[in-house]
């Protein structure tokens, strides 16, 4: 009788113990992660800002100075120092005599793995994308991460991103085509074996360019430096 009782009681006791053990380990782990996040947040933000600054110089060839502009509620741009990531921002690049060379725009979207965080340079006068840089990606090593390699980046040396006649949309949508089938300047030559990642880049760029380029073109004047003394 007593033996029977024991076997009946034991599983229940074990269940409770298991739940308590898993729960408390989870709690300890959560606490550790939160503490680390809080502790490293400031330096990560600083590092990211520096990396972004470097990337802006990469996507806009020939610039020597950048300025951040935020998009206001009324669809105009104004200079900003805000660091809040929720405020939509673009970065203007100027050469050594203060002439506007282009605008760097950040674009996010879902890749194959996690979020793809991209930066591209837009030359307003020629209406072309002149540079492309992957800020953050967790794409498959050896396959999806080829979007950071020279061959793929060659797509973005002078990519056509002309606006239509009433300046509201991109004339030719940026699309990804199969590897070797690129015939026009607005197409991205895809990577064999990394179809999803290449398409994701195309979609992200297409969405972002349609959203930003008409706005940037319309407000072109607000990016110019008027102050000669600087």
């Amino acid at each position, binding site marked *: 009788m007593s033996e029977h009782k024991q076997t009946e009681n034991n599983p229940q006791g074990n269940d409770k113990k298991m739940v308590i*053990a898993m729960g408390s*380990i989870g709690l300890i782990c959560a606490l550790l*992660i939160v503490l*680390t996040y809080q502790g*490293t947040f400031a330096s990560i933000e600083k590092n990211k800002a520096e*990396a972004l600054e470097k990337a802006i110089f990469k996507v806009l060839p020939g610039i020597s100075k950048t300025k951040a502009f935020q998009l206001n509620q009324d669809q105009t741009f104004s200079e900003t120092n805000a660091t809040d990531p929720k405020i939509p921002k673009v970065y203007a690049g100027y050469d050594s005599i203060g002439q506007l060379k282009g605008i760097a725009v950040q674009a996010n979207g879902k890749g194959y793995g996690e979020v793809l965080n991209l930066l591209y340079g837009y030359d307003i006068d020629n209406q072309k994308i002149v540079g492309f840089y992957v800020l953050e990606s*967790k794409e498959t*090593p050896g396959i999806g*991460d080829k979007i950071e390699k020279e061959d793929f980046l060659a797509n973005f040396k002078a990519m056509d991103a002309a606006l239509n006649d009433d300046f509201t949309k991109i004339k030719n949508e940026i699309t990804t085509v199969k590897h070797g089938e690129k015939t026009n300047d607005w197409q991205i030559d895809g990577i064999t074996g990394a179809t999803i990642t290449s398409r994701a880049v195309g979609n992200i760029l297409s969405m972002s360019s349609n959203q930003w380029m008409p706005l940037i073109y319309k407000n072109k004047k607000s990016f110019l430096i008027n102050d000669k003394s600087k």
Partner: protein
Amino acid sequence: MSVINQNKSEKGFLSSIADHPSTDEFIKGVWRENPVFVQVLGMCPSLAVSNSAKNALAMGLATAFVLLMSNILISLLRDFIPKQVRIASYILIIATFVTVIDYAMQAISIELHKSLGAFIALIVVNCIILSRAEAFASKNTVGKSILDALGMGIGFTFALLCIGGVREILGSGSFLGFEFMPDSFEKWVIMVLPAGGFFTLAFLLLIFNSFKIKNNRA
């Protein structure tokens, strides 16, 4: 006579360190049971991120950190974790420390974090860590577990640095980023590519095993 005696006692002291069980706990991971060269565990990161000495060193240290911290915590909690949920608990603990090192690495250098890419997150599934948790930390005291983790961690870092060093010297003509080879040196591009990882690992295993065989005979 006294000199001989002194020598003897010194020798005795040294050999007592060498024979001490806790030293053995440490040394075994570095050499006799080296995780890469002897246990042949954790092959994925050893082959994938060892294309340069810097990446190899960073990966080795990150793994050693996760190994040390998870071994400590698991050893502390070894009487508290029920047997049925032990693997789940270990994975949870390991994943936590991987997240911690992921943040820490971003804080140290974004570029380094980027060059290691997804492999930082993949430390979670590195079998060295889970195997040490299951085979050692869950059965031994905290002190011993620390020694074991340090030994294994240093052994893993050492192995990765060997592979990364050979690949970088031959493939890029540099070590830890310093170019020292003469300009006439033709770089072996294959060494930086994945295939070079396999070749290097095979050669190092060959050398390691021939040492072992010689020692056994002696």
